[in-house]
């Protein structure tokens, strides 16, 4: 392995460990809030698109999302500041709660169903537009429910779901 590549691998590793640290700090902040407010929620920490990604799943957290996601945005903003205060680095972390924007989710599920129909009819794979991790998950889940298989290909931000024929 050349030195340059070595250096790149190291950078990538340090970026990931930095993002994981961000995720941990953010999770502590959010967990503390959920505890005080006596709200149930599991916090999932991930790294997506070179950002820390946190997802709270609780089922009864609509009020923490808000009608247009405004509460979720505010909480995301505060969580980013908490990470910045703790680690000294600006954070671009993403926060999701109960897979908000359920209409968006429904829309994606509908797209997945339509695509599955076409794939079944033609027997050929169909590649969908690039999607973020949340969107891809919705599509994969829907395709699986229908009984077809799908996979993701390409690198973020161009990663796409491909729906495969039976």
């Amino acid at each position, binding site marked *: 392995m050349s030195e340059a590549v070595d250096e790149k691998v190291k950078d990538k590793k340090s970026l990931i460990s930095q993002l994981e640290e961000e995720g941990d700090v953010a999770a502590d902040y959010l967990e503390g809030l959920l505890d005080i407010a006596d709200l149930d929620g599991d916090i999932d920490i991930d790294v997506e698109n070179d950002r820390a990604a946190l997802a709270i799943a609780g089922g009864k957290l609509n009020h923490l999302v808000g009608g247009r996601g405004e509460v979720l945005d505010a909480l995301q*903003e*505060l969580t980013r500041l908490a990470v910045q205060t703790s680690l000294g680095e600006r954070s671009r972390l993403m926060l999701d709660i109960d897979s908000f924007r359920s209409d968006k989710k429904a829309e994606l599920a509908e797209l997945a169903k339509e695509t599955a129909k076409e794939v079944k009819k033609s027997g050929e794979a169909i590649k969908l537009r690039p999607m973020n991790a949340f969107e891809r998950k919705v599509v994969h889940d829907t395709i699986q429910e229908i009984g077809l298989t799908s996979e993701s290909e390409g690198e973020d931000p161009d990663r796409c779901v491909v729906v495969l024929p039976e």
Partner: protein
Amino acid sequence: MIDEALEHLVKGIVDNPEEVVITEKSSRGGTTLEVRVHPEDIGKVIGRNGRTAKALRTVVSAIAGRSVRVDLIEADEVR
């Protein structure tokens, strides 16, 4: 509970968390939470164009299930 929630949210974003003091005041107009922070932290809790202050109000009101007023004050300010 709501004062504790606000305290947690503020303490996490300031450099002097030990100096954060929350006072809850209820009146006919509803609940007001007064937040005292170290003078060096007042800019942090207000944020650019009041963005952070607004985020605090939004989250606290959402958790309380009603509109809560949040006043941000420098700790050394005379009452």
